[in-house]
């Protein structure tokens, strides 16, 4: 036994099936030093907290929800391994298992498995008020006798019963012998064994579940305890579920109304992350460009000054700019999940998504992907099945995110004659349709070969509890949103910042202070021409020139290649980078777009008189942007959420190849049919 762990404060692990009130109990009990860590080598998160129980300091560990001790997926394997011995916290001295009073038999199943495995267990029964509203109550005393473990009732909403729980925790810890030598016994997983556990549990339920009316009558009789034991509900008969939930579901899951409500909900969700976040993102942008200006004022235009303002301050800005979307999306998702709607929504759209190897729960991340892949990839956490989660994350960069809009706007404006805005709208709409179709196709193909691509083999299934509708617990939602935001900043943040600085270095060095003819130019013009000159002679442009033979087959030249490299910082940077490299300088955005387009019309491939930007090459470029993973932040978050570099690397390579080859095919097909 590990001595270090023994001498530390006792460890209590919270265990429970999903929707059993585990998180809300954790939030009631948890105290100082709340932290969230992921299990080494995985993306399964555990929250821990130091808790003072009647003067004794204990470590409380919240583990992911499980329904059985027999794992069905790699993530469940991690959750169950952690019960026996968490690599960072060690062996738990005691388990507290939350069970919903209204589905006693389903939740006692896990308790029974845990006691068979030899764990020291306290069963905390939640949601007793709902059970009592339906006319039943649970006899905790006889349940203790039947299960051979401590049982108590708690109320996760009001905190009632928590003091009793704390007393029992203290008693247990004081009396528990040091050798909690449970055997690792998950059972054989044989279905007959599971059925016999359920049969045993069914009998227990019959004996401890009492009709309230009969309890009250029995209180009056003298020999109550004995009488109570003989009263029970009628065996395997299904008790009615919460009536209100049933009534709401008639509408929410209605063939037509249900779908309408679903699409309205999703539209609200999408508009919120798209439009509500916009002013906040602009604000962050503005603050950081102000900071950059202030920093330039202090450090001047030396390479160090530019590193601080353009490299570091901009880099930090590009980490934080995603926060409004992440926070808004997670608040709304948390709300929908807590109310009980998310499971229903997933059920409504599971059928079409299952056709391409995804899950009903992939819908929200995919929809969010049209705003931005960063919050979308993080939202994929809600997909329980690992294979489906990884597959969803895999195709998310193909959703046409909002950062592509400025790029498409420029390229479409180049393609269509002025004054025909509706054609532009039509083209944009087709780009979106194309992005949906192509990502579905990619998902369908990859799910066929998912073993090689994603590296995980999980049987695809959809077994999902539709929980009772509840008033959401705003505090818990805010808390978990903050945790997600924090994990984004601490995990993906440094990677994004490093990438930004490297990219800045590539576009800035080695010609840091280019000589130009400054006669008759304003200070600002000098700076603009200098930056254009600097980029044109930078390492990035050297890299771009190497790319020349690669760019030629798709009708473009190295200067576009440089802009594509710069666009890895964020796709919309493509436009400003193109302006920089084609030496377009103009005040506001509209004027800049116009002069950029006219510069594009006149741009010749170097040493020839052929145009760089033609109808075919611009359409090819649009195709390129539909598929290419031109976003370092996406790569960083994909690494964070999948737990390794494997998937982001495959994404980057595969989507680049796909983007390039489809662009190549398009350009050359167009040329064959006579469109230059």
């Amino acid at each position, binding site marked *: 036994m590990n001595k270090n762990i023994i001498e530390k404060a006792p460890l209590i692990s919270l265990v429970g099936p999903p929707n059993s009130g585990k998180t809300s109990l954790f939030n009631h009990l948890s105290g100082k030093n709340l932290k969230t860590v992921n299990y080494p080598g995985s993306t399964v998160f555990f929250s821990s907290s130091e808790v003072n129980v009647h003067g004794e300091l204990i470590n409380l560990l919240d583990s992911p929800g499980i*329904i*059985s001790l*027999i794992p*069905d997926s790699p993530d469940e394997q991690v959750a169950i391994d952690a019960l026996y011995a968490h690599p960072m916290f060690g062996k738990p001295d005691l388990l507290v298992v939350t069970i*919903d009073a*209204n*589905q*006693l*038999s*389903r939740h006692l*199943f896990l308790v029974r498995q845990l006691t068979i495995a030899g764990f020291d267990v306290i069963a905390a029964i939640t949601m007793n008020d709902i059970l009592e509203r339906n006319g039943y109550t649970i006899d905790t005393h006889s349940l203790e006798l039947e299960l051979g473990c401590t049982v108590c009732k708690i109320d996760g909403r009001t905190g009632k019963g928590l003091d009793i729980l704390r007393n029992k925790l203290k008693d247990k810890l004081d009396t528990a012998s040091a050798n909690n030598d449970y055997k690792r016994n998950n059972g054989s*997983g044989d*279905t007959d064994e*599971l*059925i016999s556990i*359920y*049969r045993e549990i069914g009998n227990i339920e019959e004996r401890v579940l009492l009709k309230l009316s009969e309890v009250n009558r029995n209180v009056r009789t003298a020999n109550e305890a004995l009488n109570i034991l003989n009263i029970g509900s009628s065996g*395997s*008969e*299904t*008790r009615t*579920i919460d009536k209100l*939930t*049933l009534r709401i*579901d*008639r509408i929410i*899951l*209605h*063939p*037509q109304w*249900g*779908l309408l409500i679903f699409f309205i909900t999703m539209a609200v969700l999408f508009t919120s992350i798209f439009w509500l976040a916009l002013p906040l993102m602009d604000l962050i942008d503005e603050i950081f460009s102000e900071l950059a200006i202030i920093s330039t004022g202090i450090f001047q235009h030396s390479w160090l000054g530019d590193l601080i303002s353009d490299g570091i301050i901009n880099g930090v800005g590009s980490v934080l700019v995603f926060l409004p979307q992440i926070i808004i999306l997670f608040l709304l998702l948390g709300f929908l999940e807590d109310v009980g709607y998310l*499971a229903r929504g997933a*059920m*409504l759209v*599971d*059928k*079409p998504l*299952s056709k391409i190897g995804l899950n*009903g729960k992939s819908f929200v991340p995919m929809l969010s992907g049209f705003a931005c892949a960063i919050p979308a990839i993080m939202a994929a956490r809600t997909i329980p099945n690992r294979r489906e989660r990884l597959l969803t994350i895999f195709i998310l960069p193909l959703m046409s995110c909002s950062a592509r809009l400025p790029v498409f706007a420029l390229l479409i404006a180049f393609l269509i004659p002025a004054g025909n805005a509706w054609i532009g709208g039509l083209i944009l709409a087709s780009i979106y349709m194309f992005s949906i179709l192509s990502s579905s196709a990619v998902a369908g193909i990859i799910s066929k070969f998912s073993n090689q691509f994603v590296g995980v083999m999980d*049987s695809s*299934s*959809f*077994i*999902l*509890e*539709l*929980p*009772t509708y509840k008033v959401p617990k705003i505090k818990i939602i805010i808390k978990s949103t903050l945790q997600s935001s924090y994990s984004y900043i601490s995990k993906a943040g440094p990677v994004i910042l490093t990438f930004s600085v490297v990219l800045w270095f590539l576009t800035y060095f080695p010609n840091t202070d280019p000589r130009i003819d400054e006669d008759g130019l304003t200070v600002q013009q000098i700076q603009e021409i200098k930056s254009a000159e600097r980029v044109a002679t930078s390492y990035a442009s050297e890299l771009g020139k190497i790319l020349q033979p690669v760019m030629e087959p798709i009708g473009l030249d190295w200067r576009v290649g440089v802009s594509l490299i710069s666009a890895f910082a964020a796709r919309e940077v493509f436009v400003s980078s193109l302006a920089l490299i084609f030496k377009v300088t103009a005040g506001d955005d509209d004027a800049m777009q116009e002069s950029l387009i006219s510069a594009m019309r006149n741009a010749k491939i170097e040493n020839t008189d052929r145009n760089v930007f033609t109808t075919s090459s611009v359409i090819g470029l649009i195709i390129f942007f539909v598929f290419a993973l031109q976003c370092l932040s996406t790569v960083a978050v994909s690494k964070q959420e999948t737990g390794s570099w494997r998937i982001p690397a495959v994404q980057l390579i595969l989507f680049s190849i796909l983007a390039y080859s489809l662009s190549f095919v398009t350009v050359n097909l167009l040329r064959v049919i006579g469109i230059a």
Partner: protein
Amino acid sequence: MKTAADLRFGERGIIHSIDQLHPSARRIIEYGFTPGQVIILAHQTLFSDPLAFIIRGTTIAIRRSEAKSILVE
């Protein structure tokens, strides 16, 4: 014999057995679909897949293909 997927909406059935060869058989049992248990097919969505059953005091949605592994009387 009828399967859970053959139940009409609102219809009750008593589970006879679970097809052990179905890849999700163990999971289905763990969720509480055991022989002798009463289930009610509760809701009809657009595609009639997945199906939502009332069982053991809650509602559980499973895909039609999984419901086919549950034999009912």
